[in-house]
C-alpha cells in the first residue's frame, strides 16, 4: 500500500500529477524574467 493506494502504478500517477504541477511552478519562477523581447521587425 502506498498512501493507502494498492497499486504502485496508480500511486505513481497520483505523485507525478502533483510533481508536474510543481514543475510548472518552479520553471515559471526560475524563468520569470527570462525570454525574448517582444517582436515589434516584420
Amino acid at each position: 500500500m502506498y498512501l493507502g493506494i494498492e497499486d504502485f502504478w496508480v500511486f505513481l500517477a497520483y505523485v507525478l500529477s502533483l510533481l508536474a504541477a510543481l514543475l510548472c511552478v518552479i520553471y515559471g519562477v526560475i524563468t520569470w524574467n527570462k525570454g525574448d523581447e517582444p517582436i515589434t521587425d516584420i
Partner: protein
Amino acid sequence: MDFLTISTVVLYLMVVVWLAYKGYKGTRSAADYLVAGRNTHPAIMALSYGATFISTSAIVGFGGVAANFGMSLLWLSFLNIFVGIFLAFVVFGGRTRRMGHHLGAHTFPEFIAKRYNSRFIHVFAALIIFIFMPLYAMAVLRGGAEFIATTFDIPIQVSLLIFALVVVAYVIPSGIKGVLFTDALQGAIMAVGMIFLFVWTYWNLGGIISAHTQLTEMKTLVPASLQAIGHQGWTSMPKFGWAPAGADAAAAHQYDLWWIVVSTIVMGVGIGVLAQPQLIVRFMTVKSQQDLNRAVVSGGVFIYLMVGVAFTVGALSNVYFFKHERIVGKVVNEQVLMDPGASGNDPLKPVPDDAPEEVKQRAKAFVAYRLPGDNPMAPPRLVLKTPNLRIEKGAEGEWDVIRPGLISVARTINGSTTMKGNVDQIIPLFVQGALPRWFGIIFLLTLLSAAMSTLSGQMHTIGAALGRDLFEQFRPGNSVLLIRIGICVGLMVSLGMGYAVGGNVIAVATAAFFGICASTFMPVYLLGLYWKRPNARAAIASMVAGFVTNVFWMAFVNAKTAASLGICAKIFGKPYLSSPSWSATWNVVDPLVVGIPAAFIVLVVWALIDRPMDRKHADYCFNRAAQA
C-alpha cells in the same frame, strides 16, 4: 431554486456581460478580434487556456468515469499537466508564437498554411475544424444544457437554446478579447470551487491515507460486468494484456478496460490536446516568451486543480456513497419493483401487478422516497434496494433516514436509467448530498463557467475557420463581419446536433474530435515547428493519411464509435468489423493510436524522399522562430 441562487447567477451573468463589453471596447481591428492584438497578460492567457481546455465534461463527465473506473485516470491528469501545459507552453508555445507572429497568422489553419506555403492546407484544415468542431461544441453544449436543465428544472430543449444564445451573445461582439476576459473570471471561479471540493472530500473521509485505504478495501464491491473487462479495484490499474485471436468471449474482453482507459481516455485527451486549434491560437495572443514562461505557473496549478481534483474526488465518491450517505426524506414505498427488460439493460419500467412471473423474477427492488420540498403529486425518487440498505423510520411528523450503502454508479440508477446507471450524474449527486448547501451555488457557477468558457473558445474558432479561413480565401471582404457570420452558422450547426442526439454522447463526441485533430494536425504542426525539410506535398499527404486512418478506424473498427455512427452496420450488416482470426482487443483500441503514427510515418518518409521545402521560404519561416 431559491432567491439566493437566482440572484448569484444573475450577478455572475452581469459581471460576464461587463467583461465582454470591456473586450468589445478594446477591439479595433481583425487582429484584435482574432489574437487580441498579441498583447494579452500572461495570467489571463493561462487561465483562458485552462478554462477553454476544461469543460463541464472534464469535471462531471470524466469525474464520473473516475468514479466508475477508479484512480487509474490520474494518468490523464499527469499528461494534462505535463504535456498539455509544460510541453505545450515551453517546447511548442514559444515557437508557435514567434512563427505565427512573424508569418502574420491569426488562426491555426492560416498558421500551418503559411508554414507550408499551401492554400490547399489552409482550406482543408479550416474545413476539418468547421465540420468536426461543432461535434465537440455539441458535446459541451449538451453537457452544460443538461446541467442547467436539472438545476433550474426546465426542459433540455429550452436550456440548450438559452445556453447557446448567452455565450454567442458575448462572443460575436467582443471577439477573442471578450472571450479571454470572461475566461479569466470563469477560470478563477472554477479554481475556488475545486479547491473547496478537494479539501472537503479528504477532510470528511478522515484524511488522505484513510480515504484511499477505505477505497482500496472496497474492491470486492466492483460490479461483475466491470470485473469481466479487467477492473481490479478503484486504486488499481485495470488488468493489462492483449487477448489472443479466436479467444472465447470471457478471455477476449478481459483486457478491454485497460485499453479504454489508456488508449482512449489517457492518450486520446492527454496527448490530443497538443493539436487543438482553439488552444494553439492562445499562444499567438501573448507578446513574448517571457509571458509564456509566466503563464506556465498559473496554467499548471489550474489544470491540477481541475482534473487532479475531479478524478480523485470522483473515485473517492464511492467511499462517501457506500459508507456515509444519509438521505433524509419520507419513505413512500419500501418495495417498488422495476423491470430491466429481458436483456437486463433496457430502460427501467414499473412492474404492473398482473405482470408475468418471468418479469417479476427478473425485476429489481427499489425504495421510493420524497425529499423535503418535493412536489407531493410528482412521481417519487427511487434508490436501489440491496442487503446493505437501512431505513430508520422517523417518529410521526419527522423525516425518515435512508442509508443506501451503494457504490457511486449504482446510486445513479433510477426510474429514468438502465441498470448501468448514469456516470454523468455521480458528481452532481455527490455535491448535492455530501457538501453544504451553499457550496451547491459555488459548484453551479463552477460548472456554468466551465461550460461557457469552453463553448466561447469553440464558437470563436469555428467562426474564424468559416469567416477568415474559408470565405476570405475565395471572396476577400470585411474579416470581422465574415467571422461573426461564421459564428452564427457554427452555433446553428452545433445547436441542430444538440437537438438531434440523445444522452450519453458527451465523452464519445469529445474523444472523437480530439482524435481527428491529433491524427490530422499533430505531425505537421509539431514537426513543422522544428524541422525545415517537409514541403507542402509531404504535409498534405500526412494530413490526409492521418485523417483517413482515424475516420476509417472510428467508422469501422472501434466498437464504441463504429456502433454509434452506424456506417459499418449499413455497409457490412454488423456494428463493427471483427473476425475470429484477429484479437478482439483491436476493437477497443482508440483511432488516434493508429492515426497519429500513420500521419507521422507518412510525413517523415515523404519529407526524406521528396525535395526539401524551398530554402528561401524555410528561412523566412524559421529565422525568427529559431530565436525563441
